[in-house]
């Protein structure tokens, strides 16, 4: 299905998923305005949100099924497999967040259904980011997502920690946006356009003449802007604090959706607009190295599970940066596979964490999980699977993702980076395993230690889905690979041919 953005009918079709979700957001707003008193209202809103996300996914699926693509090179939005798969990741992360939020919001008495509206706006922003084929769209998508997530972070505003987290996130986020924007401006100046495809053509032409200061500075600042959102070292410092302070389902959402969206945009920008440039490979190489090392090493000393997971998400950003640095179509595929795996395991981990903790779960230390396995074997099993997957252990989706990244890095000749990746993964065993050890190998401190561990039905459903998904993809990644491969190939600049691309 070829869509011509100049025709309004086609334009609407191109934006179908976003339009569906926007429509749902308005419906939700109305519904919230009407019903916002009881927990039942909250639950209804949640289910409506779930339906909204699912129906959006279906709309996305419809476009994917019809192989929608945009005619011509100049378009504000792209329509390719990369976008659809990325959309599913965001929608999936959103849907899982909805499922785990039911119990959480009720438990913490956060009886404001606007939560779900903001969640939808956040997802929408992410989708816009993944769809954007123009820096302007990507910037606006990023801001839309950010604004929604800022508020979600501070949603539990009765808790000082939540508010503080929101403030930190907001100030630093706005600060980073400034850099991103400056980067866009410089790129605009260097190439005369904000359209990714056109930038790509210009950069290709530029390279022949001379490298432009403006372009390179702009590129660097763009990477800074995205680097903040993905929490790459040294732009990561907000992450532990903000993840810590935010309500746990939001933390999960932030760690997965926000990060995936920023990566999706980064992949599209770097590959489509700067595919012919080599500078950024080097920059991202360093960024990946320090992020992997930093994230993993800093996580080692954490006692709080939540902060540990926050640093671990920094480390995972490092792994994904390896794929970014490698560049090319296998790297993009690898990103998608990894993002899917990462989303599953991170949401699962935070969901189980929220079952254990109270009031933001900041104070749940790894030792607090001691002996959990004897009381809650299934929850422990779920968390163990998530930890192993985060560790990248074979048999779980995390391994498949890491494996794909390694392939991408190695086929791009980034052998050292691959080696650093695996070595830092070893370090990560130093903090993932203690969680498993606490649950299985340490005795319960006392009989009542885990009495109040509870995850409601839907939370359990989400965790079960996550664990099944992790194991399924870990053993049978064929479909996932097929999907990722076709999606990965779709963000390549038309001018370049990929040298070595594994099947």
């Amino acid at each position: 299905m070829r869509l011509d953005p100049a025709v309004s009918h086609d334009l609407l079709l191109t934006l179908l998923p976003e339009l569906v979700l926007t429509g749902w957001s308005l419906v939700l707003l109305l519904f919230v305005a009407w019903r916002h008193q009881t927990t039942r209202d909250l639950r209804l809103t949640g289910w409506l949100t779930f339906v909204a996300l699912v129906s959006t996914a279906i709309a996305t699926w419809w476009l994917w099924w019809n192989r929608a693509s945009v005619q011509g090179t100049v378009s504000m939005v792209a329509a390719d497999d990369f976008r659809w798969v990325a959309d599913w990741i965001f929608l999936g992360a959103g849907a899982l967040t909805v499922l785990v939020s039911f119990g959480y919001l009720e438990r913490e008495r956060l009886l404001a259904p606007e939560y779900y509206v903001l969640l939808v706006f956040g997802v929408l922003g992410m989708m816009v980011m993944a769809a954007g084929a123009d820096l302007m769209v990507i910037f606006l998508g990023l801001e839309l997502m950010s604004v929604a997530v800022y508020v979600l972070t501070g949603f539990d505003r009765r808790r000082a920690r939540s508010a503080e987290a929101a403030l930190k996130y907001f100030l630093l986020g706005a600060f980073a946006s400034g850099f991103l924007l400056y980067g866009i401006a410089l790129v605009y100046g260097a190439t005369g356009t904000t359209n990714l495809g056109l930038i790509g053509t210009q950069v290709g032409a530029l390279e022949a003449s001379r490298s432009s200061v403006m372009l390179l500075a702009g590129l660097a600042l763009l990477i800074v802007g995205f680097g903040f959102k993905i929490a790459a070292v040294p732009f990561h410092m907000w992450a532990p604090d903000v993840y810590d302070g935010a309500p746990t389902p939001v933390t999960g959402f932030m760690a997965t959706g926000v990060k995936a969206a920023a990566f999706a945009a980064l992949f599209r920008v770097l590959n489509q607009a700067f595919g012919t440039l080599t500078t950024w490979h080097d920059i991202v190489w360093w960024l990946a190295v320090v992020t992997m090392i930093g994230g993993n090493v800093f996580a080692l000393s954490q006692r709080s599970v939540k902060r540990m997971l926050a640093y671990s998400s920094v480390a995972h950003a490092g792994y994904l940066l390896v794929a970014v640095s490698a560049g090319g179509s296998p790297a993009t595929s690898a990103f998608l596979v990894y993002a899917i795996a990462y989303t599953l395991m991170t949401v699962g981990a935070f969901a189980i964490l929220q079952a254990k903790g109270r009031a933001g779960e900041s104070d749940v230390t790894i030792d607090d999980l001691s002996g959990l396995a004897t009381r809650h074997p299934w929850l422990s099993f779920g968390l163990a699977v998530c930890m192993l997957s985060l560790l990248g252990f074979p048999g779980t989706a995390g391994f498949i993702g890491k494996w794909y990244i390694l392939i991408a890095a190695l086929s791009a000749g980034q052998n050292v980076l691959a080696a650093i990746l695996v070595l830092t993964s070893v370090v990560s065993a130093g903090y993932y395993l203690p969680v498993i050890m606490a649950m299985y190998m340490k005795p319960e401190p006392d009989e009542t230690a885990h009495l109040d561990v509870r995850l409601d039905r839907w939370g359990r459903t989400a965790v079960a889905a996550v664990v099944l998904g992790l194991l399924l993809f870990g053993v049978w990644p064929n479909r996932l690979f097929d999907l990722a491969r076709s999606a990965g190939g779709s963000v390549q600049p038309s001018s370049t041919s990929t040298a070595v691309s594994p099947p």
Partner: protein
Amino acid sequence: MFDPKGFFWFFGVIAMVSALLCITRRSPIASALWLVVTLFSIAALFVLLDAQFIAVLQVLVYAGAIMVLFLFVIMLLNLGRPGPSDIKGPLGLGVAVLLGAAMLFLLKPLGSATLPTAIQLPAGSVAALQQQRGIVGSVANPLFDAYLIPFEIASVLLLAAIVGAVVLAKRKL
């Protein structure tokens, strides 16, 4: 003959000086007011750069709406007087100066940057477009044409911001 360059530098210097004052004044209100000065100067620069409509918006939206909001919050929270911890000590100053200087040093080549000749610029300069469509039209028309999608996204963004602000500000949770 009208010399835009002289005016440009004039307003530019005002903007820079007032920006410097903005970041160094102890009192938040003073800072805000100096920022307003900066914003006005920038608006003047916009005019000199053939962006009259944007200049007007700058005054209306930035200097008018946004800054008033800031001042409002400052007043609301009774932060008019400088707090003991509003600005950092010598260490903070050192760090700020050092990093700022480094950044300026790195951005210095931008001052002499010219547009790469390889770029094929879109047909027609801004001035010509303004002649053709009018000052407002030259900006407004593309909004509903080429930039329709961003425009719509911006509307959703504002909606989201409203919802967010309401959620955060409302009395009962």
